[in-house]
């Protein structure tokens, strides 16, 4: 009896200790989720919520021409980031694992871009991509005898180049995760493969890559989720341009809410982005699970 009572008291203490942090989670994560849904179904003027309007806000957002552009671009960002950004960290992880000299220097070097604040990263790359003779990349190309390029002003290049800057910043930290994974591979596997006559390439494709595969699957979905939320890169670089070529869904949401003060429209867009991401995550989990079974 006494024991049971003290057990309950321990529970109470546990919940009391969790309470402050749970309130913060409620305020920053959970409540806004529901609040967004409510806002999206109502009319509002600034912070004041007015009448229930059903799905009108959604219809309005879907009908705007910017939405089509933002929707297409966001998928384009995601695809390009899978083409450009996804394999780079795997390559970096594998190749740096093969060094014995200056390994610490390589690790530090590739991680360095990650500590540069995102906004500063974008400004810096803006100077690299400056068209004309004074852009840094054009200076370098000039030394090699290549004519200056248009870089971001070429609408076909805008999104891939923005993805390059994102990859520059984040690939190093992801590569460190792969390196930790690679160094955990049992040496016996390699030894056994060598005895069986497997050369270096064979070992990469039959041991290293299968070993990092499950990590790579997890990082895939995390990358899709994070790239889908791309916001400040196109905003700072080209303000969504040229001619809406780089506007993203998140940026459109920002415009609705903080440029036009249309919180309802912005909330409707947020809810849709959320739903797309949940569907993507769900689809992904289903696909990977059925493969494992």
């Amino acid at each position: 009896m006494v024991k049971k009572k003290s057990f309950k008291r321990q529970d109470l203490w546990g919940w009391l200790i969790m309470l402050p942090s749970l309130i913060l989670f409620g305020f920053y994560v959970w409540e806004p989720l529901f609040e967004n849904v409510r806002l999206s179904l109502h009319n509002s003027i600034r912070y004041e919520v007015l009448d229930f309007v059903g799905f009108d806000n959604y219809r309005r957002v879907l009908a705007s021409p910017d939405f089509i552009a933002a929707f297409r671009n966001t998928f384009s960002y995601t695809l390009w980031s899978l083409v450009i950004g996804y394999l780079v960290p795997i390559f970096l992880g594998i190749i740096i694992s093969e060094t014995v000299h200056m390994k610490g220097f390589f690790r530090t070097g590739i991680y360095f871009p990650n500590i540069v604040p995102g906004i500063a990263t974008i400004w810096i790359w803006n100077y690299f991509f400056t068209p004309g003779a004074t852009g840094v990349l054009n200076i370098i190309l000039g030394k090699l005898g290549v004519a200056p390029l248009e870089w971001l002003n070429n609408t076909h290049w805008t999104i891939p180049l923005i993805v390059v800057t994102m990859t520059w910043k984040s690939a190093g930290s992801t590569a460190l995760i792969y390196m930790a994974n690679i160094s955990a591979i049992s040496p016996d596997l390699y030894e056994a493969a060598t005895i069986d006559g497997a050369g270096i390439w064979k070992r990469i494709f039959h041991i290293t890559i299968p070993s990092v595969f499950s990590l790579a699957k997890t990082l895939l979905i995390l990358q899709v989720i994070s790239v889908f939320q791309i916001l400040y890169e196109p905003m700072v670089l080209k303000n969504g341009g040229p001619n809406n070529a780089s506007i993203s869904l998140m940026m459109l949401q920002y415009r609705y809410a903080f440029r036009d003060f249309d919180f309802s429209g912005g909330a409707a867009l947020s809810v849709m982005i959320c739903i797309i991401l949940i569907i993507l995550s769900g689809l992904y989990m289903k696909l990977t699970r059925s493969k494992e079974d």
Partner: protein
Amino acid sequence: MNGFFTKYKNKKDGVIRGYDISSTSVKIACIIIMLICLAIVLFSVFPIIWVFLASFKDIKEFNRNVTILPDVYDFSRLKATWNAFSFPKFYRNSLIMVLGCILTSVFFNGLLAYALAILKPKGHNVVFLLVMWSLLIPSSTNIIALFRNINILNLNGTFFPLWLAYGANAFYIVLFKEFFEGIPKELLEAGKLDGAGVMKIFTAIILPLSKPIIMVVAIFAVTAAWSDFLLPYLVLKGTNYETVMVKLFSFKDTPTDAVSVLRACLFAIIPPTIIFALFQRQITDGAAAGAVKG
């Protein structure tokens, strides 16, 4: 040259093992790999070095001279921009922001992790699940409702909503939880027998043992809070509390000459670079370990 390869005999990582190194083609491969890695590091670091170099150019030189290196290294030019933008103020505000975020990151996430890892009250599994799910919820889709709530509570223009945001971070909670679970149970039992209460065990036993993980979380909080811009921009814009990132972000709306923006970038990069130089081991190890478990 042979000395270069003897180290490969004890190679513990990757595909090429010590027993491969006797073959010439493997030796050549090792050298090529070294060169590729050097090129990769150059590519990673060059833009940052370029900022340092180009900040010394003045605007005429910047717009006309097709060179990477500046003509002269004149620190008074940097100082002029530093004063013209009253950067000391932005640095002070960023410092206030960062210090507060360290406290909330450690305190709130540490407490929740303590409950999840050690106290385990009834229903703690549900709490952990909710916390982990928050990793999958795109945080920036919350920004509209969150900003609205901040305004309704009249917290706009203050640091409070920015500080407290760092108290709800699933990643830090996972780091703390993993660490606390590794603390020997005997120590906690001994504390209980001595009659220490739940809070006493936390402050007197767990926190002193947790210095390494507090360090890691604090370092992450410093770099994250220093770089944070979206919520700070929305909350602090136009007040006297604008941080370095708010300033840097608002350059997109206010036409400023290229060199000034560049120097502002340099000022924004210097503090995290110093932190990184001091704690590179903790930062790179933490980045690898935390992300795998999270």
